[in-house]
């Protein structure tokens, strides 16, 4: 049987997932299939992680916070604040366009 994750690791994972969801909802991170991240290895996983850090940085910059790329307390507070439901960045208005490939 798998050993359960330590509490701190579990909190970090939840924190990351909540942040990822927030970043996707407001246009900082492209929406994808959540399970894909767990399947990535090597360079792909690194790229995925980079995307996440870049998205966090973009959020921090947009929100006027120190740009660290880390989910710090200020970033958490920002994400808890009441806000407009529109995305801050329009990554293509439509789902079908997001799936388009370059010719």
């Amino acid at each position, binding site marked *: 049987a798998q050993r359960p994750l330590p509490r701190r690791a579990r909190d970090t994972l939840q924190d990351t997932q909540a942040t990822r969801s927030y970043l996707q909802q*407001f246009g900082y991170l492209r*929406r994808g*299939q959540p399970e894909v991240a767990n399947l990535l290895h090597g360079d792909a996983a690194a790229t995925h992680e980079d995307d996440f850090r870049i998205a966090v940085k973009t959020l921090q*910059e*947009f*929100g*006027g916070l120190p740009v660290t790329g880390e989910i710090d307390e200020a970033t958490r507070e*920002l994400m*808890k*604040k*009441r*806000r*407009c*439901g*529109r*995305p*801050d960045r*329009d990554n293509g*208005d*439509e*789902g*079908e366009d*997001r*799936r*388009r490939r370059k010719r």
Partner: protein
Amino acid sequence: FAVQGQKWKHTNLTWSLSSLRRPSTLDPHHTRAVLARALDVWEQASRLTFTEVNSDEADIVVSFAKRYHDDSYPFDGRGSILAHAFFPGSGRGGDAHFDDDELWLLQPNNDDEEGTSLLAVAAHEFGHSLGLSHSSVKGALMYPWYQGIQSNFVLPEDDRNGIQQMYGPKERRIWGKIPYYRPVETPAPTTTTTTTTTTTKRPYHHHTHRHPQRHQPGYPYRPSKYPTYYPERPNYPYYPERRHNTTEEHPRRTTHHYSRPTPDTTTPSTTYRPRYPQVRPEHPGYPRPNTPPDPRKDHPKKPYYPEKTTSRPSTTPSDKPDTCDTTYDAVALIRGELFIFKNRYHWRMGAHGRYSGYPIEISRMWSGLPRNLTHVDAVYERPDRKIAIFIGKELYLFDTQYLVRGYPKPLVDLGLPESLDRLDAAMVWGYNGKTYFYSGNMYWKFDEEEGHVELDYPRDMAMWKGVGYNIDSVFQWKDGKTYFFKGKGYWKFNDLQMQVEHERQLLSAPKWMGCPAERIGHREPYR
């Protein structure tokens, strides 16, 4: 500031508080007053004007809703997400939605930790309604996070720059500037001032015709001190309406309504058909003396007038579908009610479920359809609430029950290929409010404002992962989700992931017709 790209083509916008979705805890009159103030913030800084109208057809319709509310941006209860608005456009373009679960405050109040100022949020959302995206400038109105608002609020510079880039700054009227002019040094020749003919061409918008000396010192002049004098307009005051029956008409005026032939009231019209009630000529009660024998007397339409018929068939017409075991030609949400079409018939589902007596013939609802109608291919309610019905290579457009003048139109007029024989389905996609057409293995995006499919289409149906080709129908249900139909089953579609939520189809009849499970056929559903 950030400009999204879409803007209104006119500056005199209308707005209204939705008649159906009003705030549950606020007084609607006070709410409207706050909304008007929020719009005034933008009006003061731009050329835009806002007029409240009592209609859900206004450019900007404000509504209050909870959780899922017919778009792809569900609310989340109190806190976090407060509202959203759509960028300019037809249909719900420009509309603003507010979370009815929030504790809205009608008075600006920054100190209240619990409540949220409606004025602050509304002013922000109306920025989206006018075409502005979020700004990263802290303190700007379009900053996405809630900042409260002061009672003497004026639009911050960042937002003012944004709105003025799109619509221009407000034009300030200088008192006395127009139409009063100072007398010129040399009066115009008397020949022009005394002429009384109507052949002189004059600009219609004479109020914008400015005097060349208007920027010289001493201008403008008070009108009471100087006589009104227009060297280039001898007949001022100018009343264009007095000239309507002269031969020399103003370019914007036409005489066609004076030259209409007088209706001939002595000869009865042969083309007259009553608009209401909707009585078709084949109705037994319709006054048609000397009617020749009806070649369609054995037509299965007859069961709908059973008391007047003598040769009523004792069995169900051959093409009348079984409610609980059938495929669907088209499914559409029209005025909040579900319409399902099959062959010549349709069902209708309202708030209390399926209407009794249905299915009935489609042509009883929309009598402008062809008399030999056998089926429809696709149906959807357009953003302007007109009902589009596709049959073969033609589009029939209805304003409620009445066929719009100029229809049916060929599909080619919409930009669809000549070779296309029919559409499979049509819908307004809840995810982006755009219209899509489907046929075979291709689909098109349709621009409702241009009345034409967009460039770069058609595309392959593979984009809609999991629904395959040759679908029967698609529509957006009240939960904001998209449903695709094929055979006797359906898929619920995840708009964000662009794929079906369940690979295996679910049976349509229990979900959409309310049929018991034992009445449903056991055909293997599509995968």
